[in-house]
């Protein structure tokens, strides 16, 4: 069963001059995670805003758990959770106060709101910070609290708009851990991201969007196959370039490409670290010392290059979901 369906969504801004969504179609199977991948301005946030009832499309249709988001927004709000690029919690109030307030707004009653707040604080490792105002939280803590706020009543469908944008690597890792736990619990999740790696880690399926349309759709593996998967890259001294190209091409099965200036030899590989070991051994046998060697995973740019023939372009910046007016989240 499809939990989320978007059909032919169109949304324009500035009196039709900026087309944010151009006939976008999307669906999410119940209990699965869909990663919506695209550069800034591709229409990710607009899609989430429409599906979460914050914005009306110019045309098209969308349902969440079978409920029409345009005709029955109140019913949709009862079953969704939403967490945006910017932590939308009250900065002056403490984490605990925020969660209790949102609990009461969900009509949980005081006792239950308190119990639920404590439970969520515990689960997101925020118990120690519970009584501190949010303005003293780190970026990662804010995001976790924001996510907690969207989980107060267990939502049937969860929307996360770029949950790790602006976080440092550690904050990102923590957030991934939290989201992976959620996914194990069987929530239906629509997640937008600019990072292929993030979609790869968290999503069952990926939809790549560009200029308001879905341009590719499939599992991470299928997508990577299309993009070419991993790439082996070696840097050697000038006099060894020719021999190295030979070795790399043989292991890869594809002709290696060379960046003469950087003395960088690249080729797609399908066997990952095994290919890496093999190349290292052959280089060693030939008496060549690799200055740098590694496997490079495809980036968003590689995906776009493969799918559209151009790299991901940033379009006019959209308003982020729980955003307000373009303030950057503090680290």
């Amino acid at each position, binding site marked *: 069963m499809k939990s989320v369906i978007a059909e032919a969504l169109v949304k324009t801004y500035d009196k039709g001059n900026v087309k944010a969504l151009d006939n976008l179609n999307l669906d999410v199977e119940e209990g699965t995670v869909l990663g919506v991948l695209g550069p800034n301005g591709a229409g990710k946030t607009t899609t989430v805003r429409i599906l979460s009832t*914050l914005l009306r499309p110019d045309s098209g249709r969308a349902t969440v758990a079978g409920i029409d988001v345009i005709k029955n927004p109140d019913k949709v709000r009862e079953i969704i959770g*939403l967490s*945006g690029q910017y932590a*939308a919690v*009250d900065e002056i109030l403490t984490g605990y106060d925020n969660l209790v307030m949102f609990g009461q707004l969900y009509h949980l009653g005081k006792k239950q709101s308190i119990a639920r707040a404590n439970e969520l604080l515990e689960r997101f490792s925020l118990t120690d910070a519970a009584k501190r105002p949010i303005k003293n939280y780190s970026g990662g803590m804010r995001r976790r609290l924001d996510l907690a706020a969207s989980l107060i009543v267990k939502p049937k469908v969860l929307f996360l708009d770029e949950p790790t944008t602006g976080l440092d690597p550690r904050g990102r890792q923590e957030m991934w851990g939290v989201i992976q736990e959620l996914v194990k619990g069987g929530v239906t999740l629509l997640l937008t991201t600019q990072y292929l790696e993030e979609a790869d880690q968290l999503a069952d399926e990926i939809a790549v969007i560009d200029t308001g349309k879905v341009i590719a759709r499939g599992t991470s593996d299928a997508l990577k196959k299309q993009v070419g998967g991993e790439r082996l890259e070696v840097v050697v001294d000038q006099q060894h370039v020719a021999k190295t190209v030979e070795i790399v091409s043989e292991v890869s099965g594809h002709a290696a490409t060379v960046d003469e200036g950087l003395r960088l030899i690249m080729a797609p590989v399908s066997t990952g670290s095994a290919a890496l070991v093999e190349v290292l051994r052959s280089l060693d046998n030939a008496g060549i010392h690799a200055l740098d060697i590694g496997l490079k995973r495809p980036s968003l740019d590689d995906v776009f290059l493969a799918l559209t023939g151009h790299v991901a372009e940033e379009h006019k910046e959209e308003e982020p979901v729980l955003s307000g007016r373009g303030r950057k989240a503090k680290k």
Partner: protein
Amino acid sequence: MSAVTDTYIITRRQLQLLTRVPEVLIFSTIQPIMFVLLFRYVFGGSIQTGQPGGYVQLLMPGIFVQTVAFTLAGTASGLAEDMKKGLIDRFRSLPISQSALVVGRTLGDSLLNIVVLTAMGLTGLLVGWRPSSGIGNVLLGFLFLLGFGYALSWIGAFVGLSAKDFRVVQNVSFLVTFPLTFLSNEFATTTGMPRALQYFAEWNPVSTMVAACRELFGLENKFGATAGSFPSEHPLVTSLFYMVLIMAIFVPLSLRKYRKAAG
């Protein structure tokens, strides 16, 4: 019923904010008290009013009205800040009454007015303000003031939700409030103004409110009453009319704006 509960929770959040940042309460109280003292002792000495009890009797209603007029700016910047932080979108994605956030905000700002007016009234009593109309009428006067502040708070809501930039909000509120409060009978008689301004000052809701309060506090309305004009003869009715008119326009406008916020 849930709309009432939702509104109550939002109003309580605002009071919670006041306890977390007590500076807000302190400064919103200190400023009007400072005005009372400044006008009482700086201008009071040189303005000849012939008013028994002195200038302070005429001054207090004026300063009360000016203070509640600034509720407009308070509500506007509060909502603009919620908008900036993305809180408005968060609230709009919740299954709650779609008017709760704005209604709660305006009510919370009015509760703050109660505290501020009380502090000002007490200061006034200390520096010689002596309303002579009996406790019932004085309380009615304060009720009028709260009502006026509440109505203006809805203009503020509209400004706060409309502004594209947080900094604009401050400027717009200032531009709305300042001429209204000074082109009035608040601090000086309007008869010294050019004729066109006199006319404006006469019908200015701030003037009719000041006149209404003066009447309720037991004064003859000496400032700016062009004898025989409707607002000067019937300041209470005119003020009530203005409050209803403002709310009739700005409540629906603001709620509509909220539902489409950042759309």
